[in-house]
């Protein structure tokens, strides 16, 4: 870990709310007994999770651990059944389609690859929610979009098309679009994937800045351990569809659970091989 990252982590650590303080805050996400299967393959097992107001929760896990599926449930792209998901105090399963659309106006989502509309400029992308969901005048929308682009260090790039952007700019533009409606909760899917360490670190700083400036809760799905240490108030670790750990950064870091440590230290897990079983498998029995 670089010195800069250590410093930033230390600064954030000092600002992290205590467990007691977190417990007093309102829950913005409550997941209760969520299971999910694709056909006969179950990918989420009895997920119970909560995120508090103003908290940054990082959901980590290896490939195929179910973190993207969980995120899709949280943002309403998959039904929260069986189980229950409450977002900003509303039970998503009990809402009508229209109520769900209303609720989604109060959250923001930045996808892994940006999901910017390729036929629109960056500025048009950021203005899209305003244009489609509000009655604001064009001038007001321009001002709001420019403000968000500036927050995301994209001032002056609004006229570019998404294909003209670098990976880091694409992610920031996606975040600018996610926050343009001033949501109370944002979800970021793999914000640092595919970025070099410097750009990734700048993105972490942006996430912290957003949380502090806008007083929003942030859920980040990531596999970047350094980034998680730097920005998270709490870390949830998913493994094979189950929550392995969900705690404050220090507690997760010092966990005695071998699988948690393997994930944090990027150690591969070698399953013990039963020679007889192995031979039987080779023989096709």
């Amino acid at each position, binding site marked *: 870990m670089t010195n800069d990252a250590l410093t930033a982590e230390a600064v954030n650590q000092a600002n992290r709310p205590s467990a007691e303080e977190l417990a007093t805050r309102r829950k913005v996400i409550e997941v209760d007994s969520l299971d999910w299967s694709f056909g006969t393959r179950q990918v989420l097992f009895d997920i119970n999770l909560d995120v508090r107001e103003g908290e940054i929760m990082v959901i980590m896990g290896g490939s195929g651990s179910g973190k993207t599926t969980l995120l899709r449930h949280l943002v309403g792209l998959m039904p929260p059944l069986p189980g229950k998901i409450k977002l900003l105090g509303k039970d998503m399963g009990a809402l009508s389609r229209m109520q769900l659309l209303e609720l989604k106006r109060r959250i923001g*989502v930045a996808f*892994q690859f940006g999901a910017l509309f390729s036929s629109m400029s960056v500025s048009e992308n950021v203005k899209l929610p305003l244009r489609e969901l*509000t009655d604001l005048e064009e001038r007001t929308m321009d001002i709001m979009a420019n403000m968000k682009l500036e927050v995301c260090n994209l001032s002056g790039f609004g006229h570019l098309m998404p294909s003209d952007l670098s990976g880091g700019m694409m992610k920031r533009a996606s975040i600018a679009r996610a926050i343009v409606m001033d949501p109370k909760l944002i979800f970021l899917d793999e914000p640092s994937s595919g970025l070099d360490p410097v750009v990734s670190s700048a993105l972490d700083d942006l996430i912290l800045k957003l949380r502090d400036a806008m007083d929003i809760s942030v859920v980040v799905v990531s596999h970047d351990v350094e980034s998680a240490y730097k920005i998270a108030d709490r870390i949830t670790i998913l493994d094979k569809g189950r929550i392995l750990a969900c705690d404050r950064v220090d507690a997760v870091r010092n966990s005695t659970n071998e699988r948690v440590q393997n994930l944090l230290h990027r150690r591969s897990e070698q399953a013990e091989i039963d020679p007889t079983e192995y031979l039987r498998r080779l023989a096709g029995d």
Partner: protein
Amino acid sequence: MANPLKLPGKIFEGIGRRTVAGLDEMGYAAAIFFEAIYWTLTGWRYRQPVRITSAFASMMQFGVTALPIATLLAATIGLMLAIQSLYSLGLFGAEQYAYIGIALSVVREFSPMIMGILIAGRSGSAIAARLATMSINQEVDALQVMGINPVRFLVSPVLIALVLMMPCLAMWANLVSILAAGLYVSAQLHQSFGAYLNDTIDVLKTGDVWHGLGKATLFGVIIALVGVVNGSMVQGGAEGVGKVTTRSVVISITLIVVADMIFAYMTTK
């Protein structure tokens, strides 16, 4: 080696699977159709109106920019019909009645069908490719999580545009085909062009024109729905986009021809 006794079972299983998948797709298309109409009529109540500007942009894309190729095709069809009519009626010495066959077949049959096939190839494929690319790039997911209904945002403008532009294109094709045929026929039969037009207007009834325009509207709905359904069912990357685009064109044209036959049967019986 495969057991030959199992072959008939597998064939029936395959037919059954395809039938169920086909019905499933039809149900999906019907749901999208009604949802698009619902949002068109009631979107303003939820502060999500269908944007007129989007519908106009689609009308430009599907209709206005297709005019040059539509004109060329319509003129060619008109000339081809004139040549064949003069030849076939000439066998009985009845060339002077060519205008009847030309007028009725152009207005009732050829204009809507040729425009349908043209727009299915030109715009149906574009709709499917756009939707498929958007699905793969998570743009449709992005709309959903923003609280923007994708059917209202993506499908309704396309449906409105095609339902309005297809009859317009068919009407334009009627004019161009009849004019092109008229020029050829009047030149071949040494009669005045004005007389040809008078005869054509006399033989055509309002019902014939409505018949063609009704078909064109139906074809517009078919092209829009097939494009949207195929585009949203994409799987895989760029290869998947290519597959659904091709499939969309093939299915659209097939359905247009079948619907044309059913429409003709139902309305002329």
